[in-house]
């Protein structure tokens, strides 16, 4: 670590001006739960560090009627403790609750989970299912991008002069539920081996009329599982459908992961994770309908 200058940012405007001034020499620090380790191991070597952990405008969870806006500086603990993420949004609560440990959840932020770009970031698959939009600011203006495109297109990722300010998504309809399942190697402090988030809506006959499935750690970055979604859409959730769905998902991940040492393991594990996420979704559906 050879920092020459450190700033404790007070507002977004000040931070984007600093980013404009220092560009690639500067790094943003929020919760610090990843970057401090990278700094100490000399994996990154910025000259300037800009702290955004005290900026109030980045720390709000706002219920905007049809939409929810989560500030990029919102901690996992804040999400877990917020009543907005109960019932049909419980999958996001669960994903945030499974991050690290209490200490890590107190400091780690959703914005950091995104901007840092880890393929194992727990909060991302649920945010993908919700079709979230990311708001990035720089002195040049504001950029909005869907979280799915943000990951899919490497050129769309955060630029050195940009600050991620918020994550926005439309609230699911009353009959839609979001669920989440993660496989870690232990209960606390586990980095995801893989994770699955599902947003689903059934009609009165039990047919799937809306489904979004997103995975973490089943590719280079968290992504939608489009082939599985297409397969499930319009079908009833019978055992044979779920069994076939697992095969569709396994085929899709094979294309991305074949040859990797973890593939045979993940291929088996994804079966269980998908069933767990789906099973929970059905439980939540019963709850929100009750």
């Amino acid at each position, binding site marked *: 670590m050879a920092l020459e200058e450190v700033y404790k940012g007070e507002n977004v405007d000040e931070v984007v001006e600093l980013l404009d001034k220092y560009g690639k020499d500067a790094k943003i620090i929020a919760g610090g739960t990843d970057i*401090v*380790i990278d700094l100490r191991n000399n994996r990154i070597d910025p000259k300037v560090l800009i702290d955004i*952990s*005290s900026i109030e405008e980045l720390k709000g969870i706002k219920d905007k009627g049809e939409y929810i806006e989560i500030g990029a500086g919102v901690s996992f603990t804040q999400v877990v403790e917020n009543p907005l993420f109960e019932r049909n949004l419980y999958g996001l609560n669960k994903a945030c609750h499974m991050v690290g*440990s209490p*200490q890590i959840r*107190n*400091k780690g932020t959703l914005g950091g989970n995104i901007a840092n770009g880890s393929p194992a970031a727990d909060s991302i698959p649920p945010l993908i299912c919700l079709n979230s939009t990311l708001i990035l600011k720089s002195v040049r203006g504001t950029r909005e991008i869907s979280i799915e495109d943000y990951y899919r297109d490497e050129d769309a990722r955060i630029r050195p002069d940009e600050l991620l300010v918020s994550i926005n998504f439309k609230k699911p309809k009353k009959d839609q539920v979001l669920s989440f399942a993660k496989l870690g190697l232990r*209960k606390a402090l586990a980095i995801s081996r893989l994770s699955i988030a599902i947003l689903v809506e059934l009609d009165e006959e039990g047919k799937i009329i809306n489904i979004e499935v997103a995975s973490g750690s089943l590719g280079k970055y968290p992504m939608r599982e489009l082939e599985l979604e297409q397969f499930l859409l319009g079908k009833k959730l019978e055992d044979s459908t779920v069994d076939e769905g697992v095969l569709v998902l396994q085929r899709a991940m094979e294309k991305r992961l074949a040859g990797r040492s973890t593939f045979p393991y993940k291929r088996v594990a994804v079966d269980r994770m998908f069933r767990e996420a789906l099973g929970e979704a059905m439980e939540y559906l019963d709850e929100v309908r009750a």
Partner: protein
Amino acid sequence: MKEIQLKVNGRDYSLNIDENMRLIDLLRDELGLLGTKEGCGEGECGACTVIMDGETVTSCLVMAFQAHGSHILTIEGLERDGKIHPIQQAFIDVGAVQCGFCTPGMILSAKALLDKNPNPTREEIREGISGNLCRCTGYNKIVDAVELAIKYIEEGK
């Protein structure tokens, strides 16, 4: 160098610190508060846990300059009028301290838990201390100690 002001265990400090310093370095090397331990240095073990503005953090993952304007509570700050805190007393009474390296962080995690939820279940206690590793006790004695601490606090001991 960067000038910061912060409160540690109720006392105000104004310090000139190295930009590269972490909060744990500030506590141990600048203020001599050696109760806070450094274990893994990566936020996994919880030995360096302190309470920052009411929430537990691993002080090895906080840069010292980030603590400007905040209030830090370390294990040394739990003492009141020469008496140790009921959670500390419970740890001693139950035998939840063996080598002692995890103890300061463990007790601060227990305190943060009890401040938010004065009557946790055993399961909630386990979750509350899930960010603190102990290689001696097997955790059962620690959970017992937190349960006893609940009783001590209720009795105003």
